[in-house]
């Protein structure tokens, strides 16, 4: 870590630690829009939304689908806790498409179903978008 501009970034799901690396820049989907993190970011605790997580290390870039969770920054360590994290290779495009069609046909009866539908649509749309880039 000599005069580098990297900070530690880890992505953890309940099943395993998905990613541990030294990143130069990370952009994650916060609950109210995307948020970027660079070196020496002030301590932060933030709820995340559904979207694409972009991690840039000195050598390469990574992109990942994350579904909610929390992000914490302390002492140049970014920890992303999410219940689901998928790389584009892991996304099943056909399944995402099928879900999208299914939820779009879903009827809204109350607020809860509205939120559930909205989230499901967002989830599949992000996944589709990520796989298209490949």
């Amino acid at each position: 870590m000599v005069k580098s501009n990297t900070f530690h970034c880890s992505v953890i799901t309940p099943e395993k630690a998905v990613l541990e690396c030294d990143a130069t820049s990370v952009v994650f989907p916060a609950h109210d829009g995307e948020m970027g993190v660079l070196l020496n970011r002030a301590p932060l605790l933030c709820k995340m939304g559904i979207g694409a997580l972009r991690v840039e290390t000195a050598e390469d870039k990574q992109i990942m689908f994350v579904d909610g969770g929390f992000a914490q920054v302390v002492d140049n360590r970014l920890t992303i806790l999410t219940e689901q994290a998928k790389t584009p290779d892991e996304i099943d495009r056909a399944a995402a498409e099928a879900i999208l069609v299914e939820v779009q046909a879903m009827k809204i009866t109350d607020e809860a179903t509205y939120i559930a539908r909205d989230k499901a649509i967002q989830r599949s749309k992000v996944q589709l978008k990520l796989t298209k880039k490949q």
Partner: protein
Amino acid sequence: MANRRVLIKRRKAVRNIRKITRTMQLIATARFQAAFTRAIATKPYSEKLAELVADLSKAAEGVDHPLMHAAEGIGRSAMVIITSNRGLCGGYNSNVLRTAVEHLDRAKETGLDTEVHMVGKKGISYFKFLGREMVERITHIDDAPKFEQIEPIANYLMGQFVRGEIASVHVAYMKFISTGRQQPEIMQLLPLAQDEQADADEASTGGGEAETQYEFSPEPKQLLEELLPATVRTQLFQCFTDATVSEQIARMVAMKAATDAAEDMITTLTRQYNRARQTQITMELLDIVGGANALT
């Protein structure tokens, strides 16, 4: 003669069984290794989550959340019982089920009706045999429980709890303590235990680190409202991973015992066979000698 052949047949059968049980033991060992690695991999998430809850509850000055209080005067509660889908694992299922049934009966005495969510075919057939009721039967969770599979169960239970339909949620499972020790345990999932929070608080302040001034988004209280359900989900998920590890250990031990027993039996059978053979030879010799004597 007949006796000898029977002994040979039996010995052959026992040898075959030993072959099978030994293979099953090896498979269980391999599965245990995999399950164990998976169980270890869940630790960072839950630890980090506990840390966040501790940090947040400090910032939010006291925690108050519907998941932490049981509504008064409800005569119902729920229990998740985790058993295995497959047998041949010794006392694994019966231990969990016995503990669970004891708990259910005790709850009944205090006037609580418990809804049982049964996981695993073995538990289902046992409860069917007892004629007990189950509100839900789950058989699709296998050796490698996925978070997506557990999440709906946790969400459903939390929903019921928050709506005040049930007073508490317990989980009966085989807790993995070490490779040599597993214990059937009843864990209280809901309401969230308050003292655990205090412990987490203490742990983080005990470290003597300066308190970090976080930037919160959204407000700490709202964040906490999201975090606590996540904690519950993780806790339930960990019960499942623990249970699979314990199941594989139980199967490993049971199959080891079976292999050893088969070995002992083979030794005994071989001895019996040799004796029978010897007896027969002696008899034949006696016959010949007797015949020869009669001629002279």
